[in-house]
């Protein structure tokens, strides 16, 4: 079903995908209007037991972890000198920038009085709080990511002098990105250290900050592999020879790293269990769920990444990247929703309203649209001919 209409002199085809995207945007705008005119109570199922719901779990915790590809890739290239992955830096940094921008946008939905979002910096700083550190790091890192991706925009706009200044700052920005990411990725886990009585012992551990940081590296590596595959499939015509030539090497190299980091993450989780002597919980229903998370979404992708990298099976690596991403998403859902308030009766437990789902899907759609808008216009998946020699 597609009929044609004209817009700004160009033929614009209405396809089922565009209709779906249009429907999501329209519904998202309606719920946004309700949220900002009627308040949180009108659109969410949040209550005093669960003041942080789907928007924090998915839009913030998952969003921040999955946007880690930016610092992982730029650190690999500019700090560890793995120049063969250079073509992956811009797409990864762009995904990181859009991811963090959407995290901040999502926070305006979730903070009761959204225009007070800058209060921790301007009015009431709480420098001893993990949340203050997360807020500060996210704000600074968003600025760093903007500067890191700005050469693409400046090349597109033809501002070569300004671009030259920003490019000279690349190493400093990369180091800043790594420092800020280390701080806030771990602090997001640190936020849950104050709820030992609310979070199930299998997920609660004094190693939570370390677990969040290490798993964010897995998320970053896997997202770069996954996103690279999607870009090649849907935007392959925008890629230059270097991108296409190196895409398989990138997947194999990142799969090796992913396998090692996942193995480390698995042992950190085991260490948490051993240090708190939580073994007996493994025989319960929550234990089965934990074993599924650790076995199916940590140990399995670790082995599959290793097999894929050894056999140079890029197809296996790409599917494993999806599994690993799902594993990180599952972990964030478990820590902040499923295993949170586990003592409460089921009728008192939180389940998101349909409007919360709409906003989360709306924000992801905005991210995909923004990514497509940028990569179809700016030199992200290809080198700008004027600067190809650099």
């Amino acid at each position, binding site marked *: 079903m597609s009929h044609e209409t004209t817009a700004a002199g160009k033929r614009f085809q209405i396809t089922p995908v565009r209709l779906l995207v249009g429907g999501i945007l329209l519904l998202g705008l309606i719920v946004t209007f309700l949220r900002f005119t009627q308040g949180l109570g009108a659109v969410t199922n949040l209550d005093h037991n669960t003041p942080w719901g789907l928007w924090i779990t998915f839009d913030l915790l998952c969003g921040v972890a999955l946007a880690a590809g930016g610092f992982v890739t730029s650190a690999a290239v500019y700090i560890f000198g793995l120049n063969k992955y250079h073509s992956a830096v811009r797409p990864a940094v762009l995904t990181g920038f859009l991811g963090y921008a959407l995290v901040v946008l999502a926070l305006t939905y979730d903070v009761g009085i959204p225009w007070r979002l800058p209060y921790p910096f301007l009015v009431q700083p709480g420098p001893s709080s993990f949340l203050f550190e997360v807020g500060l790091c996210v704000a600074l890192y968003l600025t760093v990511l903007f500067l890191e991706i700005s050469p693409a925009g400046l090349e597109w706009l033809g501002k070569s002098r300004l671009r030259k200044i920003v490019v000279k700052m690349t190493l400093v920005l990369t180091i800043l990105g790594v420092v800020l990411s280390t701080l806030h990725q771990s602090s997001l886990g640190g936020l849950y250290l104050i709820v030992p009585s609310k979070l199930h012992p299998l997920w609660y551990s004094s190693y939570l900050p370390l677990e969040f940081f290490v798993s964010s590296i897995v998320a970053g590596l896997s997202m770069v592999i996954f996103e690279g595959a999607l870009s090649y499939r849907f935007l392959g015509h925008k890629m230059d020879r270097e991108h296409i030539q190196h895409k398989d090497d990138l997947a194999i190299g990142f799969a090796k790293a992913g396998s090692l980091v996942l193995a480390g993450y698995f*042992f950190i989780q085991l260490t948490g269990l051993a240090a708190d002597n939580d073994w007996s919980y493994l025989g319960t229903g929550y234990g089965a769920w934990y074993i599924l998370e650790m076995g199916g979404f940590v140990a399995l992708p670790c082995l599959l990444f290793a097999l894929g990298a050894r056999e140079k099976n890029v197809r296996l690596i790409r599917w494993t990247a999806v599994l690993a991403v799902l594993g990180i998403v599952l972990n964030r859902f478990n820590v902040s929703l499923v295993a949170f308030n586990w003592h409460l009766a089921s009728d008192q437990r939180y389940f998101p309203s349909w409007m919360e789902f709409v906003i989360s899907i709306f924000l992801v759609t905005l991210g995909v649209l923004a990514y497509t808008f940028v990569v179809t216009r700016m030199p992200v998946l290809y080198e700008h001919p004027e600067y190809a020699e650099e």
Partner: protein
Amino acid sequence: MQDFSTLHEFMSFSKGLTYVLMGVMLVALGGLWTFLTSRDEEE
């Protein structure tokens, strides 16, 4: 759940197991590294 009469007993057990796990991890990560890189070296 295993019974512990004193904090010392608990710490000895949990820390002891953690140290054993650390040893296993060192060996396992070494093995994984060999598995990942051995074919590259052959090539």
